């Protein structure tokens, strides 16, 4: 069936080699971050590529106890949970209304959603900043929560409508004919079905908010409200001569995401492509 056995062996080997190279280049920076974070500054300066032969927790200790990193992580966490929760909630309802409801202009609504996905947040920076200052929300977590939620909603709606479209109309009609009102249908049928998709949406949005830098840099400047990413970016400037320390900060910021990813991989990948594939 296939070409000569040797030909296919060569092909398989080269495929593996290709993939291995890709994987190594994907993993090396992570290795660099992790291994350097565990080295002392002196060891790093002597040999940046070296293996951590005398690993030390010094840098990690410094950033966790001497720097407000935990505070920043907490802020990032609060912001992520709040904005993602509100956005997902809104998206679920809005997508439901858009796909199964018969309200006028729902296609315009969806098109607008898609359109707004494209708007770069930076263009809204100045007016939103002015607004936050005027209402006194600047330097409070509410400012970024509001802004992020607003930014997440278009994509969330887009994603959810794509998913809801895959729910067979018959299910809905069957329930409706049994006398269930729209809300009940939502609760009993649509919601349970959208478990995996919602989970995916939540994870994607959470990653986006957690990783966001520009808006957090501008709106949250006080040390008590700073988020992890903007603190990390500042780190780079302040500790430029202590690479292990900076990378220890980077490591700490990456760990939650990696853990989340490893635990939810399967759903994540499947759900993400289901939404896009439509």
């Amino acid at each position, binding site marked *: 069936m296939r070409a000569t056995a040797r030909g296919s062996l060569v092909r398989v080997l080269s495929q593996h080699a290709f993939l291995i190279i890709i994987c190594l280049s994907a993993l090396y920076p992570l290795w660099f971050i992790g291994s350097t974070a565990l080295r002392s500054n002196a060891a790093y300066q002597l040999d940046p590529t070296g293996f951590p032969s005398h690993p030390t927790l010094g840098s990690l200790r410094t950033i966790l106890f001497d720097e407000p990193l935990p505070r920043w992580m907490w802020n990032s966490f609060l912001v992520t949970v709040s904005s993602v929760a509100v956005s997902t909630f809104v998206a679920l309802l809005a997508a439901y209304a858009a796909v199964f409801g018969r309200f006028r202009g729902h296609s315009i609504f969806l098109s607008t959603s898609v359109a707004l996905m494209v708007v770069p947040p930076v263009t809204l920076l100045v007016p939103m900043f002015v607004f936050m200052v005027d209402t006194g929300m*600047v330097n*409070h977590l*509410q400012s970024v929560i509001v802004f992020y939620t607003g930014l997440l909603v278009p994509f969330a709606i887009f994603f959810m409508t794509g998913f809801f479209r895959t729910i067979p109309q018959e299910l809905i009609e069957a329930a409706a004919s049994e006398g269930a009102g729209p*809300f009940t249908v939502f609760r009993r049928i649509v919601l349970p079905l959208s478990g995996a998709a919602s989970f995916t949406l939540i994870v994607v949005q959470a990653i986006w908010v957690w990783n966001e830098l520009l808006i957090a840099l501008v709106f949250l*400047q*006080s*040390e008590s409200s700073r988020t992890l990413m903007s603190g990390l970016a500042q780190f*780079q400037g*302040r500790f430029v001569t202590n690479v292990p320390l900076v990378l220890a900060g980077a490591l700490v910021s990456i760990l939650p995401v990696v853990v989340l990813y490893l635990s939810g991989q399967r759903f994540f990948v499947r759900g993400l492509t289901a939404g896009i594939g439509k």
Partner: protein
Amino acid sequence: MKRVLIFLGAALVAGSAMFAATAASKTAKTAADDPNNANLTYWYWAESDAPGANNWLKKQVALYEKAHPKVKISIVTQSTDTLTSAFTTAAQTKSGPDIATQWATLPTLSPAWAGATVPISDYVPASETKNWISTAENLWQGKIWAMPQYLIGIPFVWNKQLFKKAGLNPNKAPKTWADFLADAKKLKAAGITPFGMGNKDGYGGAWFFSLIGKQNLNSINELKDAMIGKADFADPKFSGFYQTLADLKKQGYLNSDVASISFGQGFELFGQKKVAMSWGTDGNVAQWEKQVGAKNMGVAAIPIWGKGKLATSYDVTQSSDAFITKWSKHPRAAAQFLTFLHTPQALRAWYKATGVFPADKRFPASAVTDPIAKQMLKLDQSPLSVWPENFVPPQVDQNADLAGGEMITSGSGSPAQVVKLWKSQLSQWKSQHPDEFRNYQKWATGH
């Protein structure tokens, strides 16, 4: 369906009401400005100039809080790259720290002109401020707008062992630029990197401007004229030094990674003995002494490159200063703390921690015993001293001074192009910030 929409709408309204409520709940406490009862936030920067500064301040705060139990001070160390822009943004929000740090003169006076700060001389009596050195750097309308903490000079340093290895007299510093180039040539021939600096972030080039570039001027007023357009920056007396920097790079007298390592990383080169010559703040030199050994290095004035009166000027400046913000609710408490930092105990601790000289006449010169430090002190007492970067508007500094130097060290722009950049940035500054321009003009010509 309608029910769903109504529910959705209600949820949104409730959510936004909740947010609005929490936002508005920042109660406006009109507590009286009691110097012994306050929560202060201090945005601090000095570690780059004077390694050891952050620890010193932490200890001082601990001491002060012990003596004043109702006062709490939180220090927020700033990053060099965003020192000015972070404060500019804060000033726009009219909220932020009680005490902030900026570099002297323009970076301190610009927010003052914009009404974001209050003069410290309003809160500290003249009997105290007369002991502070270099207050003229932040003088405007007869008031002192910020408190100096330390003075730094930037001496030229060389590694005596590496000099010997290249066949140069280890005890002779290059006095003129011609000497410098001759020494560099011999060092390079011996396989030693002659001069070390980091310029990924542009501060290396900015220092070149302030140490070498000024040397064809007769007075700093000429630079002020160039800023407001009364003189042309394209005149070689202002911008001729860019060719010298370009030549240095072309001849290979700089470290090969000058364009990809940051300023702070560049400082490490001399301490790691990877380069034979460099310059650094008094604080950097104190660090290098520990790494290279006092016997193996020398300090001297910057080689003379230009022909103006400023060619023989030194470069002592308070560098960074501390001032009180307009929106602070505790200016008296802030002033009291800042004054505490000039008490004999604090000054001595500062010197011990950083090796940098306090900006206070009461600090006894006898406390300086290290031979290299004594030489630096002598340099710092030079009759004429000016740090030109302090006179450049911050936006122009960042977009032309820093960016221009980066263009040269990365080989991506010719000196002529850098001059064009300066001129375009100066005109942009004028058109984007007409108020600031007017204030600068008044300040510059009113002397």
